[in-house]
């Protein structure tokens, strides 16, 4: 379904489109927004230069949460870094696990059994559901809809986290995937519980969309705001829902067909205008596609082993070489680049963080916009500082 079909093609615009400063600049005001600002979603700072309320310059400042994850990983065993990946994007630990496991599997040539692939798809799509639902909530929260949409989203997220807890023992820091499979099999009754959740989730989405999609205020505040043209989005390595909201059909699940994604029938929702509203809507529509994948995966889940018999937990030393593995994480392309020198530790371990790279064009999107819209534009990028600063 396209965004226009989902919203009956409605476009609203209360604020006149921002014009570049009319030549005569007033006195410029420099402000430092963050790092302890509630709208920055963590410890993130922007140095803004304002002309009246219009943004003239914006420089993001990073590093408040930097702990050099990559250096730490170089002194750990390969498996030892797995719990650390949970803490990158702490909303989506299971997709982080998967991206890292995928890179190591490429490096060591491991084959994941079919059942484990299914479990990986199921957990990753559940992760996408809760991430996108919460992003919708946070975005509305940033716009001033205090509490209600966010709490609706959190209510659903909690049900998904219950599933994660039953499966992995932890709500958020799951540490679940292993090189060549998964750590443990599904507990009894888990599949039925997940199927129930998938059956009930559309009701939440209907309610959420009925409340918000054609909401006058939401449309007025987000349509035409923070426009990102498709050519710039590709050139600036933007990935994930942000890239697709600009109308670029690029979903790594479709392009790389990693895991078993070629077995599922799902669409890639695209935006037309590349504004904040399209980024919001692309995520809403993506949730419906994730539900399709979940329904199919939960129905077809085969029996069998969940670990590659060749996989070794102890004494794991991949042959010298390198590998880059990437997946479509909820926030964009999450990649891991590993170099092995044949030892028990990676020689080089690199995380390609989607939300860090998606911030490259933050200034381009905010120039000429109102300072109040900077908050929304940043919210629509969907950043998590654990991943941005690593």
């Amino acid at each position, binding site marked *: 379904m396209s965004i226009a079909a989902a919203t009956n093609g409605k476009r609203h615009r209360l604020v006149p489109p921002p014009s570049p400063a009319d030549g005569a600049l007033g006195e410029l005001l420099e402000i430092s927004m963050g790092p302890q600002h509630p709208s920055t979603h963590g410890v993130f700072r922007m140095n803004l230069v304002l002309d009246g309320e219009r943004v003239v310059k914006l420089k993001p400042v990073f590093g408040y949460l*930097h702990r050099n994850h990559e250096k730490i990983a170089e002194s750990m065993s390969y498996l030892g870094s797995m719990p650390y990946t949970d803490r990158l994007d702490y909303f989506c630990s299971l997709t982080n696990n998967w991206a890292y496991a995928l890179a190591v599997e490429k490096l060591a040539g491991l084959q994941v059994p079919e059942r484990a692939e299914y479990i990986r798809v199921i957990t990753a799509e559940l992760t996408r559901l809760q991430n996108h639902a919460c992003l919708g909530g946070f975005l509305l929260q940033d716009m001033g809809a205090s509490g209600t949409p966010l709490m609706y989203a959190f209510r659903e997220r909690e049900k998904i986290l219950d599933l994660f807890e039953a499966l992995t023992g932890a709500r958020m820091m799951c540490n679940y995937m292993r090189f060549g499979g998964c750590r443990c099999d599904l507990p009894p009754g888990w599949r039925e519980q997940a199927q129930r959740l998938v059956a009930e989730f559309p009701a939440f989405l209907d309610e959420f969309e009925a409340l918000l999609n054609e909401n006058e205020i939401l449309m007025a505040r987000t349509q035409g705001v923070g426009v990102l043209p498709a050519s710039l989005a590709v050139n600036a390595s933007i990935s994930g829902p942000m890239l697709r909201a600009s109308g670029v059909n690029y979903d790594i699940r479709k392009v790389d067909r990693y895991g078993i994604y070629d077995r599922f029938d799902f669409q890639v929702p695209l935006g037309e205008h590349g504004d904040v509203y399209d980024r919001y809507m692309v995520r809403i529509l993506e949730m419906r596609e994730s539900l399709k994948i979940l329904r199919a995966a939960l129905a077809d889940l085969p029996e069998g082993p969940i670990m590659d018999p060749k996989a070794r937990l102890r004494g794991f030393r991949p042959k010298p070489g390198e590998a880059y593995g990437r997946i479509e994480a909820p926030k964009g392309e999450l*990649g891991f680049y590993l170099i092995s020198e044949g030892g028990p530790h990676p020689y080089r371990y690199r995380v390609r963080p989607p939300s860090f790279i998606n911030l490259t064009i933050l200034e381009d999107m905010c120039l000429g916009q109102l300072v109040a819209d900077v908050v929304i534009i940043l919210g629509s990028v969907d950043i998590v500082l654990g991943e941005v600063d690593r």
Partner: protein
Amino acid sequence: METLAQIKARIEAAVAGAVVEMVPNDSPSGQHSLWVDNSHAVAVAQFLREDPELRFDFCSNVTGVDWPETERTEKVKTTRLVDGVETSVEEIRKTKRPGFLEVVYHLYSVALKHGPLILRLRTENRSDQVQVPSLTPVWRGCEFQEREVFDLFGVVFTGHPDLRRILMWDEFTDHPMRKDYVEPDDYEYEPTPHDEVLVKARRSGRGEAGT
């Protein structure tokens, strides 16, 4: 996608004088890469982006790798004349590989949906000749990632529009991702009267107060 050897041949044909070398990768991933000389790197990057059959318009990942100077010892059997008799002697031969910093680019094509093509740029050494050309003018997505490589590895990107530290603070002087980096005992050490006060307190404990 064409094979790496074909791409290499096409680069050499299109960019006059470019030195391109295959870097093999023995791991099961089979992701081999191309090393490009610094003086032609920007032209090669532009060619890779513009060529209608390659169209690498998406520079996904940029990262640095530190390769310090290493010494490899090998035992080599040679024959030599010892007291007029030809005998085989084992010799220990040492080979040195000079150290360098490497920047790795992973390129994909959004338009044609293929990739990755892996480009590598290398610096002359690890101390004073650490420049490589910046590819930010070709792919905007390199901007923050090259800043990160500059910050953590100390590679200087010539032609980068805004080369500043990004993760470490501006006053920081070292490059923490280098293999020989030694972290200070205390990052945020500030001289305080604490030590002097401690000495004084010990003295007063021994009944030497006021000295």
